[in-house]
């Protein structure tokens, strides 16, 4: 998976980013696109924890995890944070490539952006775990993740500025405005100094959005984990 993601990432930068920047009338689109690409990659790596849940259920590891002397809350929280951290380890080298291309203008802003990306990755892992335990069918989960990936990433500012999304379709613009991928992508750009076409004036607002996203899926994940899994609920 790491190699596949790396090939995808590099070809996106070297081909799509470079050539598309000649096609569009967005100033400095290449750097803008590379910033969004890092968040797209982080999103798809963090989603993977859900697939692990199915593998564990298939091999009976689920029952073992439930028998461990930890609370359900600790279990969900630990898995979400673990999934997010793992995604960061996968994506770390690719992010370094992005930073080499984009550069860092203000280290303090960048640290805040990095913190928000951690929360974003934990939130995505929590969402993936929540959906996996609700759906309980790897086929359906696979399709839902494909559809979500298609919609969440494309209806965000990962690839294009919010003003163009709104202009294309007000509904798309509305969805993009409340999309955690938009918050993460724009905060990452803000942290690296790409300040044109940002969707916010105050960076605390998207940060708050990401904190809420993380908290929501953590809470829902814990409740659903308890309800769906106890007493052989997986079967």
């Amino acid at each position, binding site marked *: 998976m790491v190699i596949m993601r790396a090939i*995808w990432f590099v070809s996106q930068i070297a081909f*799509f980013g470079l*050539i*598309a920047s000649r*096609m*569009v009338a967005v100033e400095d689109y290449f750097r803008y696109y590379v910033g969004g690409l890092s968040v797209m990659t982080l999103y798809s790596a963090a989603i993977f924890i859900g697939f692990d849940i199915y593998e564990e259920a298939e091999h009976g590891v689920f029952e073992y995890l439930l028998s461990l002397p930890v609370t359900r809350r600790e279990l969900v929280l630990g898995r979400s944070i673990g999934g997010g951290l793992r995604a960061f380890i996968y994506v770390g080298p690719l992010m370094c490539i992005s930073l080499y291309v984009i550069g860092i203008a203000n280290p303090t802003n960048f640290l805040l952006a990095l913190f928000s990306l951690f929360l974003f990755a934990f939130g995505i892992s929590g969402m993936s775990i929540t959906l996996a335990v609700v759906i309980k069918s790897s086929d359906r989960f696979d399709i839902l993740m494909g559809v979500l990936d298609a*919609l969440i990433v494309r*209806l965000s500012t990962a690839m294009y500025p919010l003003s163009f999304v709104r202009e294309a379709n007000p509904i798309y613009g509305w969805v993009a405005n409340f999309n955690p991928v938009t918050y993460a992508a724009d905060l990452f750009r803000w942290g690296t100094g790409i300040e044109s076409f940002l969707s916010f004036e105050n960076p605390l607002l998207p940060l708050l959005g990401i904190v809420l996203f993380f908290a929501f899926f953590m809470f829902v994940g814990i409740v659903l984990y308890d309800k769906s899994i106890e007493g052989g609920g997986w079967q």
Partner: protein
Amino acid sequence: MRHIVHILENDFRNFFRYKWWLVGLISMNLADLFIMAIVYNRMLKPEVVQQIKSYFNFFAPGLTVTGLFASAFMIGREVNMERRREVHQYMLSLPMTRFELAFGRVLSGGLRGMVYMSPLLATCFAFVGPPTPTQFLIILIVLFFLAMGISGLSIAIAVSTTSIDKFVTARGLIYYLLFFCSSVFYPFSLIEQLGREGKFPMLLVNFARVNPLSNASDLIRSFLLGTPPFTLEMVISVLVFSAVFTFFAAFAYIKLIERA
């Protein structure tokens, strides 16, 4: 011929086992068209607008070709899995010639690609406009040969390794090189321009020019949009690609699975 039909039946049954995966792939394709292409439509530079008019119309044929590519490539994954699980011993024991077996696999990969691509092509015609009956026939023939070539390419990669990691890596490299170094997403003139400015290696510019995905997309565009103009080179490029990889794959399949 009867034996090839059996192979086709078997591979089509396997193809529809991945129905969830196919639904996911189609929704991603449609999201690309109805979200990404519509937004890019608003972002184009005036000189690009002059050249391609609408990004949505420009991208729809490219999307059809990428859908064909992804689905025709799936046969490689199955062939690689058969080799890893040694199902190929069973395949070799079937009462049919090696050529029938190999050609049947390449043909089924290509036909599966055509089946998957049909709704995307219909969507393209519905939104961009229909071709004339002759143009429609040429498009179908060229896309069928392209699908055969892609299926052959994926089988050739699949039988050359038993390692899933190596297969996935090789597939990724080929996938993205053929996808992004082509005129599927952007006009070829932009790639040429980057090459002239020295910002893109000329080797890759030439690769994009002969890339069968570029030529198949541009062939559909030439009929539906009138630009770029139709050239015989578009058809020849796809036919050469198809001929080389269909026969190479059949040969590799026979030789390598017998050796394994």
